[in-house]
């Protein structure tokens, strides 16, 4: 409690908690392995954070508005499968080139938009519980991708994959594309959350949707938009994901939904809604990715315990910021 009295009222444990956790992890990593801070490792960690990170930014808005989306991992797998199928089918007609990659990207964005809209319509228009709706769509998309792949793996045509690969592995000015896209999504999300009516409406609805309604906030529409936005972001994440290994199977995107939700909560957004912090979500994603990275770079604990370490750090990061009630 000395912290509260010593520091200015603006710095609260809830704000610096996640940052402290991240800094501690970085120091630990650097002490344990000299390669931890190498440019290559930093680039690896940031690029692999990008998928979950892009999705988690969208999830921040959904959760802030009092919703939840469990379907994002399956949705990503389904969109990846669909994208690969469309691109492979179009290959004989279009040939290898920018147009076919743009076609694949368009498919991913529209599929994401449509999938998000479907979740949104069921939740806002039919008044169903978000947990149940997205639990259902999670099962549907997971089965659909297994069915599309006939139980196996969908692989992008090899030459096409080679052409498309730079979208994940390439970059500009030494920064790879996934990191750039992730950064842009975060900046956009932060502005949207802090400086627009939409961001305020999300928080208002998550805090108390009745009061928001009486304050002439169009509750259903704002909620709907959060799911649509998340769907589109899943599409964007998939666009970055497909060129990495050029394949999709029923194992693609497993548990991404829980990782994204964990990142959002670790970052300080209230699970019950009413308060959201996009930059906190970024910290959350980095914390989760770094734990796996550090455990791989060291032999400190048995690999059987990786999950336990991750769980403990998630709980610790949330303990560090307790004391704030939703909506505060």
């Amino acid at each position, binding site marked *: 409690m000395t912290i509260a009295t010593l520091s200015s009222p603006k710095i609260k444990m809830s704000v610096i908690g996640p940052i402290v956790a991240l800094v501690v992890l970085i120091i630990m990593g650097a002490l344990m*392995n000299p*390669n*931890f801070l*190498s440019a*290559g*490792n930093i680039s*690896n960690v940031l690029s*692999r954070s990008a998928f979950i990170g892009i999705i988690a930014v969208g999830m921040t808005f959904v959760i802030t508005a009092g919703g939840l989306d469990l379907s994002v991992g399956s949705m990503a797998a389904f969109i990846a499968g669909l994208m690969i199928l469309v691109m492979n089918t179009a290959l004989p007609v279009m040939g290898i080139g920018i147009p076919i990659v743009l076609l694949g990207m368009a498919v991913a964005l529209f599929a994401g938009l449509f999938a998000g809209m479907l979740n949104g319509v069921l939740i806002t228009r039919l008044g169903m519980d978000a947990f149940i709706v997205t639990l259902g769509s999670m099962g549907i998309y997971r089965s659909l991708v*297994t069915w599309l*792949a*006939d*139980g*196996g*793996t969908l*692989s992008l045509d090899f030459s096409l994959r080679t052409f498309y690969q730079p979208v994940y*592995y390439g970059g500009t000015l030494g920064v790879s594309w996934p990191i750039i896209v992730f950064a842009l999504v975060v900046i956009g999300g932060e502005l949207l959350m802090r400086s627009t009516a939409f961001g305020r409406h999300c928080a208002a609805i998550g805090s108390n949707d009745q009061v928001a309604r009486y304050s002439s906030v169009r509750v259903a529409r704002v909620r709907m938009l959060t799911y649509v936005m998340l769907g589109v972001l899943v599409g964007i994440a998939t666009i970055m994901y497909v060129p*990495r*290994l050029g*394949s999709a*199977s*029923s*194992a*693609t995107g*497993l548990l991404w939904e829980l990782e994204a939700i964990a990142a959002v909560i670790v970052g300080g957004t209230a699970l019950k809604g009413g308060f959201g912090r996009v930059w906190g979500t970024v910290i959350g994603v980095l914390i989760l990715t770094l734990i*796996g*990275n550090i455990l*791989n*770079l060291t*032999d400190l604990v048995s*690999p*059987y315990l*990786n999950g336990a370490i991750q769980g403990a750090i998630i709980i610790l990061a949330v303990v560090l910021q307790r004391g704030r009630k939703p909506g505060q």
Partner: protein
Amino acid sequence: MKRLISALAVSTALVTPAFAQDTQVIGVSIPAATHGWAGGMNYFAQAAIDRLEETYPQLDFVLATAADPSRQVNDIEDMLATRNISALVVLPFESEPLTGPVQNVANAGVWVTVVDRGLSVEGIEDLYVAGDNPGFGRVSGEYMVSQMPDGGDIVVLRGIPTTIDNERVAGFEAAIEGSGINVLGMEHGNWNRDTSFEVMQDFLSRHPQIDAVWASDDDMAIGVLAAIEAAGRDDVQFVLGGAGMKEMIQRVMDGDTMIPANVTYPPSMIATAIEVTALGVVSQTPVSGEFIIGSVLVTQDNAEQFYYPDSPF
């Protein structure tokens, strides 16, 4: 209405002679195609059933695929209660939860064939058909030793923590013991491409010199190869996967130096089990006991025999 009656007539006509011949039903219960290997297993199960139904008109098959152990239990109970099966071929999702239900089937006097994963109580099954996990590790280890006679530094990717994975790794470690091959690190890639990609990236950051990789599975080998390619490292001489995925067998056939070999753990073992069980049902041939399918080393010379272009795996 007329069409309905004629349809009924046709179906009665089809069903009646079958009953007259005293049809015997064989139940096949397997996990659903949730990953590549299981997808291949589903394909080979269906293919074996199609072939046998054509060969033996007196046999009828019930194929059920389950997404989790409890659904598999339901499937097996339904088969016993409603389909009057004479034999059951089961690839248990997990050993523990399936042991009781399969024991009930055996107690009812039904022939039981267990595939790949043994039950937790011995002596329930009449026939046990399985791959050779310690052998899978041993063959992989022996290949590593033969490729690196002077020793070298390798990293190992393990599967999901299970008995299968432990037996494979133990077989591998026994085979490379004293050969001068040094295992720099072992991590779980969970038989998953994405996880293996990330694990391999971290192995590459951590170790400046890696001579070879035992990916121990073809899905994991794909992730490993992508990570090596992305890092632009040329110290890794080869990657040894396993299980015989068709894309990887293809690369062995083409003489790819990064993928010089593969070790089989065939999903088609389900076909062996169904065929042998059917043989036992239709004839006097004794088929009880154990049938262990060895893991074979696939190199460029024999790769063609192991290439199944129609299989999803």
